[in-house]
């Protein structure tokens, strides 16, 4: 019984962090209507820059964090301009949110997906060129500080840095959620996610808005990466892929584009991982995560697609 609780709490703590990873990805999806596959790579390259700087001498962690955040934002600008910035051509179709709202990847979306993964490969190689070793040191939080909670005659062990980051994640997510629902900017955001062209008609500078949001989200991903790597104390060449997969899983489990969804998804991911590790070991743990993702996709995404159809008042050709 006690193990269950310890495992579950570990899972939840990890889950909160996964949710933060997923948040950036999910929000950029709802802003652009396309998935940014370079998401992990942007954070990775920024993190590598931070590691490189840290390598040069005694540099404060705060400064490293700022560097990682700033560099991530800059790289985000590059990626956005290269892959996503082209204004959507309204070619003859007046209802720009096309009839096939979720029935398939539009040509443009496919192209953006493809070019963002091409840039993913590019950024990843740039990072590896910077620090060729597979594992590189990263400025770390104090890994020994733990919180001990007496429970059922035993002691729950929680690493303080993990716990802090988890709590920070939850706070950030909540703040962002409030902003999106309550503020003028959040309204503009949601309008763009609903219907791009109509948003233009409201006077929203959609392109500029999206660029700024993308840069902010990239910076957020840099911040997230910094926190995670500071817990680990090292960064590896697999980090970009890892971050993308975790973020993608967390975001998709709860439904792309939804802040509460990504929170749920992250927690589900964390808990699944924690329990699967106990029962099935390392390989089983990975497998369970993918299986969970796969099942969710095949069972749920049908629901998501149907919801969108109703809103647009047009019935996709019935099967």
């Amino acid at each position, binding site marked *: 019984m006690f193990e269950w609780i310890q495992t579950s709490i570990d899972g939840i703590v990890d889950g909160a962090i996964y949710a933060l990873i997923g948040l950036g990805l999910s929000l950029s999806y709802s802003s652009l209507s396309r998935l940014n596959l370079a998401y992990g790579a942007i954070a990775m390259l920024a993190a590598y820059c931070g590691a490189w700087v840290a390598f040069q001498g005694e540099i404060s962690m705060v400064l490293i964090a700022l560097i990682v955040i700033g560099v991530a934002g800059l790289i985000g600008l590059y990626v956005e301009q290269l892959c996503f910035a082209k204004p959507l051509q309204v070619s003859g179709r007046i209802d720009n949110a096309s009839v096939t709202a979720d029935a*398939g990847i539009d040509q443009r979306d496919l192209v953006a997906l493809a070019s963002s993964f091409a840039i993913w490969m590019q950024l990843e190689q740039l990072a590896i060129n910077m620090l060729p070793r597979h594992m590189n040191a990263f400025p770390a939080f104090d890994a020994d500080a733990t919180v001990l909670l007496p429970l059922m005659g035993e002691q729950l062990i929680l690493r303080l840095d993990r716990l802090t980051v988890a709590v920070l994640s939850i706070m950030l997510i909540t703040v962002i959620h409030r902003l999106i629902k309550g503020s003028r900017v959040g309204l503009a955001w949601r309008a763009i996610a609903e219907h791009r062209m109509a948003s233009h008609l409201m006077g929203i500078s959609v392109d500029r808005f999206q660029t700024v949001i993308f840069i902010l989200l990239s910076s957020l991903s840099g911040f997230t990466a910094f926190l995670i790597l500071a817990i680990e104390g090292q960064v590896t060449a697999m980090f970009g892929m890892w971050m993308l997969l975790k973020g993608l899983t967390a975001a998709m489990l709860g439904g792309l584009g939804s802040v509460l969804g990504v929170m749920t998804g992250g927690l589900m991911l964390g808990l699944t991982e924690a329990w699967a590790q106990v029962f099935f070991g390392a390989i089983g743990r990975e497998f369970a995560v993918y299986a969970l993702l796969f099942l969710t996709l095949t069972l749920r995404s*049908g629901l998501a697609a149907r919801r969108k159809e109703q809103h647009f008042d047009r019935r996709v050709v019935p099967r």
Partner: protein
Amino acid sequence: MSDRVFGSSSAATGMDGAIAKAVRQSLCHLPGVDDAGASYLVNVLSDISILSLIALSSYVLLLSGRVSFGQQAYFGLGAYGSAVGTVLFGWSLPLALVFGIACGAFCAYFLALITRPLSGLYFAVASLAFAEMLRLALSSWHWQVDRGGGPVGPAGLEGFRSIRWLYENNVAPEVFLLICLALLGAVLIGQMLLERRRIGMSIRMIGYDEVLAAAQGLPVDRLRLFAATLSGGLAAIAGGLYAHRTTYVEASLFDPMLGVHALGYALLGGLGTALGPLLGVALDLGLLDASRLVDGWRMVIFGGLIAIILRVRPRGLLDESLVNSTQRRARHIVGRLRCLISPHRDLDAQSSRDAIVPGSIRKS
């Protein structure tokens, strides 16, 4: 023909040796290629043909409008399947390859079946999840059998070694290259023929606009399943060939990067023709590998190249409009040639036909 090439070791050695020599000598005729260079070329060309097959597998699926990050799964299945065939069941290579193809094709079909209602993005992620699950499952698979000199067979993370069919049957690397090229050629011809027929065009239509295609009465699901099965089989051929070439396979074959590269080749090379993916492969392997300067920057350049070209030509380099205009021009030239060759033909009919073709020569 296949029996003579793959057949028993005694009869084939002489033929094989002669073919191998012929290939080497013809390669040596190329400028700057000596014997060592010829060996290198044989290897590179084998790599290119195997990669082309998996690039074609992505291409076929892209035609039907699906982006897949999981083609590496069928590559791996083909590798494992055919290796099991030759090593554990003692089959000949052709039979084992067919078995591998069946594994890949069936798996692709199965995935496409259960992901039918998914939209493009969700399908892409599902394909990745599926491939990863397969990878993890195979990296835990142990099936060791004693075959004379010790245990052989998949050994979990350590992989599957001693896939020595090619060596045991004295198939020289040059002959292997010819096998790869022959298979690639057959696939290309088959695919190009398919695209001329109604079924190929229907698949393309679905890729462009599935709602429109369905409204026209096309059986979208069935055609998609067909394209998926085909793509699985293609990747499996590549895997089978690869496994026997390197004599060793392991679960790291299922690396998502492989699938990502295959996708990249198809997208970069172009979706207008089956030659497109080959162009993508050639660009990556041929140009970038050849110039040692760019060694550590290959992905930087290749990735950037894809992103830039896709902005300008979203359907790749050899896209449909290029293919169409090339075909039209070719037909026009053929038409003019025919006119020159048989001048006594009815010139009025000829020129009136020409008038319908846009851009015909005004002088006539």
